[in-house]
């Protein structure tokens, strides 16, 4: 078994005429927390969807656990996905099922566990995210932050080898934020898995991750441990970590100069 779980090589991907990825390469180790950070709209969610095989790259390859995601048959891809957990930015809970049934869903689909065993496991996972008391509620009765925690419980239901977190921290109050941050790192250590965290939240993400990749304009700008990045000489990294308004990181979506637009 190699130490690299996800191997991305020369990835190209476009939406319409807009290039989202332009030759991105990245290695994600089998163990530990890898953070992927970058300005809003650079394609972090898109990258996770490419890794999960929901989108197909124009060029380049993505290997997960030695398998080329985009050359697998549907059956093989589904087998692989059972070993991947993904936490969507929106939660993506099934709205016609209760919280309990949502977490039980992957267990019912993919295992033949007894009802008692399913109940045991679901309550355990819900307890881990602090929502055991909400088991009988419907998704429409939850707040955004609570939905995301239920979705996390669901993502870990099958004890996957990797979990992809898309913005797990947005919409959390300071307490559940703290709990979530330590939960992600505890889960990672306890299960000895690969966690990929996509986030804007610089201090908390840097505090738990082992490796960080900054992406911008379709490429990796800089990678390394949080320590090296904090002391990085790169203007770009410095600006992103400190949230300065001025610097090489563009705040604006690509556009014509404002003068041309306003006085057309």
């Amino acid at each position: 078994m190699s130490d690299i779980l996800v191997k991305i090589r020369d990835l190209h991907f476009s939406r319409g005429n807009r290039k989202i990825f332009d030759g991105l390469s990245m290695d994600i180790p089998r163990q530990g927390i890898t953070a992927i950070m970058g300005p809003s709209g650079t394609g972090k969610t898109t990258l996770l969807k490419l890794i999960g095989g929901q989108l197909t790259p124009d060029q380049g390859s993505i290997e997960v656990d030695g398998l080329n995601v985009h050359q697998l048959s549907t059956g093989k891809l589904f087998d692989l996905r059972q070993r991947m957990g993904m936490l969507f930015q929106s939660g993506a809970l099934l709205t016609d099922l209760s919280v309990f049934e949502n977490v039980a869903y992957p267990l019912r689909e993919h295992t033949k566990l007894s009802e008692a065993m399913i109940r045991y496991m679901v309550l355990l996972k819900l307890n881990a995210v602090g929502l055991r008391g909400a088991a009988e509620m419907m998704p429409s009765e939850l707040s955004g932050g609570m939905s995301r925690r239920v979705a996390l419980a669901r993502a870990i239901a099958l004890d996957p080898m990797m979990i992809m977190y898309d913005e797990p921290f947005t919409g959390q109050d300071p307490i559940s934020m703290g709990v979530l941050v330590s939960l992600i790192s505890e889960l990672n250590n306890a299960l000895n898995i690969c966690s990929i965290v996509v986030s804007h939240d610089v201090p908390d993400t840097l505090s738990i991750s082992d490796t960080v990749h900054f992406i911008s304009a379709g490429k990796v700008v800089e990678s390394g441990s949080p320590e090296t990045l904090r002391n990085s000489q790169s203007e770009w990294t410095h600006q992103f970590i400190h949230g300065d308004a001025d610097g090489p990181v563009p705040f604006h979506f690509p556009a014509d100069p404002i003068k041309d637009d306003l006085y057309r």
Partner: protein
Amino acid sequence: MIFALKGKSLFNSLIDRIQHVGAATIHSFQRLGHASVFLLEVIASCTSLLTRPLLLVKQLHSVGVQTLIIIVVAGLFVGMVMALQSYYALIDFGAEDSVGVMVALSLMRELGPVITALLFAGRAGSALTAEIGLMKATEQLSGMEMMAVNPMQRIVAPRFLAGVISMPLLATIFSAVGIIGAYLVAVELLGLDSGAFWSQPQNKVDLYLDLYNGIIKSLVFGIVATWIAVFEGYDCIPTSEGLGQATTRTVVHSSLAILFLDFVLTALMFTK
């Protein structure tokens, strides 16, 4: 000079319009192709329901049973109105005893399948599109895919099959209730002889030609209406606007398709 400019812009706008028509045509055919591939996938996915019949039962309830009430009420009134109208028309010829057979034949051959299908598209079809489209917009379908669950099998197939099974049953109920409505008006209200009302349909309605053909029609309408509904939902642009447009398209396209197919099927079935 001005004339030349005008001529040029006229020419350009003409070209623009032709291009527009061409693009729209290509787009329509592409969507038709998409929809056909989608239909094959749905049909292939239906086999997975053998292991999960409960999913189908649940959808039969929400697609079929919940449409029942509007079908029964509409059937009753259509039957009653038909009895009135045919009574007034036939009595001039002393043929008012034929009210029963006239209503029964019109309902079984045409009105039952067609009106049921139109109501079905408006009630169940639009709901299917909205439901599936909203699941897409809220990433529930993507979420299922990432849980290694195929939404074609768990979401689309049970809804499609439920629609296809429900339509012939609903159309049959529509016709039956319509005939009862006609009986109420003709016999109870207008005082027609009950024996005459029932005996003529018994003699003149043909099991194959009338009943079976009506059921085949309603089956075809069911397949088409449900196919359009689930496709529009699955294929919609996942925004509130896109969803609204998809729901409208479901109702408009299925209604037109039903009326067109009714003509084709009638022409094929009832040639003498």
